């Protein structure tokens, strides 16, 4: 049989950041989509975003049929996302109809249908020329009536009716015990089903979204974390780990001239990932601060995620070694984001980090230190987060520097095992010699460039960091490394 090959399925953008990427363009145009999840998972807010974006950004008026909340309650709830439903209604871009079904005052005496509901839908749709509709939640109908056979027939008729009108619909359903929805609504919606989930793990809550079904369309099958904040809903697609990032030849000065020399050619590759690991107090943050300084001095933006110190503390510490970051913070080139890792789940960290990167478009992102993220989840989760963050940054050509606190016994290991995804790996360590504790830096690896293999003494001065090669003749055993102070920097 030679079936006519259907063209690409037309899609209707939701305008929800990330969701349109995950679904390859949005929801199926002219068809119903089921959004299900337990109470408080964000069904209503996601549905409202679909309508508000449709009206405000795509010129598609919408209808919101709400069973559970009154129009006022709905308006108040979505106001937290910055949506003004009243204004949209005044502009004839939206209709909100609260359908009240109270089983206690309706007795069923003989055969009935839901023509009243159909008439209301038609009236609402026609009054604004709606292209989009939300019915939140269909489950309420099942609570409102006894005659399940009639309800199911009417539900089928309703979805068919919406399809016939070419309306792109979202119907919502409550999560059931053994099925996606309490009343098996998924049976009737064959085109697209999206499941929302709100989990609390170790007192940390995370929202997830998963496209369970999307007929006739490829879609991401992963669980994607999503965020609800004052800017609306953001879904974070897990960027395909396809290694197709452009490899830039451009170098970014490290901010430490001697280090630029060690990385033959003058610094890190733009868009690469630099890992700086070392034991406590070896100067990891100083290396990061130098990169931040040189970035801002070039007039590029730098985003700094501080998981250990507050912004003020960090600025003060860096000022003491001659790195004045405060003016760059004031000019807006430098942006700090100090958060306690345990304040929220790892997924939320990732979502917020990605969002900030999209908003600020920094040239350089610094995470100091990544080791602290483990406290907000398992090491495995933290590693997965870092991998995804790095993929995301690479795909944007953003240079990333991650610092990692290592233990003295596992210097060349990282708790998170992220070293394999780092392009350049700087190792800092303490050595004791002549009754003195010294800091040593060396380049463990740096992909795609020749680099010095020599140990360098890492000097923290009041004008920043300087590096001096350790004398070749000196025994470079951990305990006796002796730098050739201020000598010609043989490399």
């Amino acid at each position, binding site marked *: 049989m030679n079936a006519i090959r259907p063209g690409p399925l037309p899609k209707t953008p939701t305008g929800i950041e990330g969701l349109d990427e995950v679904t390859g363009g949005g929801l199926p145009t002219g068809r119903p989509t089921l959004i299900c999840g337990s109470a408080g998972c964000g069904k209503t807010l996601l549905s409202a975003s679909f309508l508000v974006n449709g009206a405000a950004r795509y010129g598609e008026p919408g209808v919101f049929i709400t069973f559970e909340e009154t129009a006022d309650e709905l308006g108040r709830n979505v106001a937290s996302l910055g949506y003004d439903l009243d204004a949209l209604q005044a502009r004839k871009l939206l209709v909100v109809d609260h359908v009240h079904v109270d089983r206690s005052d309706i*007795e069923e005496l003989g055969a*009935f249908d839901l023509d009243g509901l159909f008439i209301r839908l038609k009236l609402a749709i026609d009054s604004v020329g709606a292209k989009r509709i939300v019915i939140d939640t269909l489950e309420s109908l099942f609570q409102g009536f006894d005659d399940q056979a009639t309800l199911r027939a009417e539900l089928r008729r309703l979805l068919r009716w919406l399809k016939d009108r070419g309306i792109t619909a979202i119907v919502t359903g409550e999560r059931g015990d053994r099925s996606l929805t309490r009343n098996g609504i998924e049976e009737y919606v064959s085109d697209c089903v999206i499941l929302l989930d709100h989990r609390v793990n170790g007192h940390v809550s995370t929202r997830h979204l998963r496209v369970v079904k999307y007929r006739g369309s490829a879609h991401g099958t992963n669980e994607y974390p999503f965020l609800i904040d004052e800017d609306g809903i953001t879904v974070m697609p897990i960027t395909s780990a396809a290694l197709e990032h452009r490899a830039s030849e451009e170098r970014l000065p490290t901010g430490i001239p001697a280090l630029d020399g060690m990385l033959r050619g003058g610094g890190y590759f733009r868009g690469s990932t630099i890992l700086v690991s070392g034991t406590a107090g070896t100067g990891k943050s100083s290396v990061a601060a130098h990169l931040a300084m040189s970035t801002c001095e070039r007039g590029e933006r730098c985003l700094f995620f501080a998981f250990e110190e507050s912004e003020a503390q960090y600025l003060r510490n860096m000022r003491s070694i001659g790195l004045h970051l405060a003016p760059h913070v004031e000019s807006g080139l430098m942006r700090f984001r100090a958060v306690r890792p345990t304040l929220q789940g790892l997924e939320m960290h990732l979502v917020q980090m990605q969002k900030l990167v999209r908003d600020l478009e920094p040239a350089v992102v610094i995470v100091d230190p990544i080791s602290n993220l483990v406290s907000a989840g398992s090491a495995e989760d933290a590693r997965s987060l870092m991998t995804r963050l790095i993929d995301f940054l690479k795909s944007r050509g953003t240079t990333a520097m991650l610092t990692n606190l290592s233990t003295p016994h596992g210097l060349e290991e990282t708790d998170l095992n992220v070293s394999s995804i780092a392009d350049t790996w700087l190792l800092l360590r303490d050595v004791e010699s002549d009754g003195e504790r010294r800091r040593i830096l060396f380049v463990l690896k740096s992909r795609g460039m020749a680099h010095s293999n020599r140990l360098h003494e890492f000097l923290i001065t009041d004008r920043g960091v300087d590096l001096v090669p350790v004398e070749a003749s000196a025994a470079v055993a951990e305990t006796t490394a002796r730098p050739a102070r201020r000598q010609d920097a043989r490399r």
Partner: protein
Amino acid sequence: MKKPRPAAGTASIESWQGRTWDFTLYIAGQTPRSVAAVENLENLCRRHMAGRFRIEVIDLVLQPELARTDQIVAIPTLVRKRPLPVRRVIGDLSDTERVLRSLDINVRSA
């Protein structure tokens, strides 16, 4: 021993004797179900409250905005406005015995 009191809501019914019952019936076009509901209600009223009933039939196909303002979902919907309290039932009213019971139409007193 206390005298049994009438159940809530029936007091007004009892005293409704001799007064006019007021019904609103919502239908949607001339579908068999809607037509049946109108006929069933009229027959019932003629038999049990002859001359003392008023039936307003609202066809939502003609007045769709009333579906919204009066919160109608199912068709047919019958609203008993008088006597109070307001009572709603849905369906084609084919089972006369149940309709009488649900609307508190006391066959004797009505």
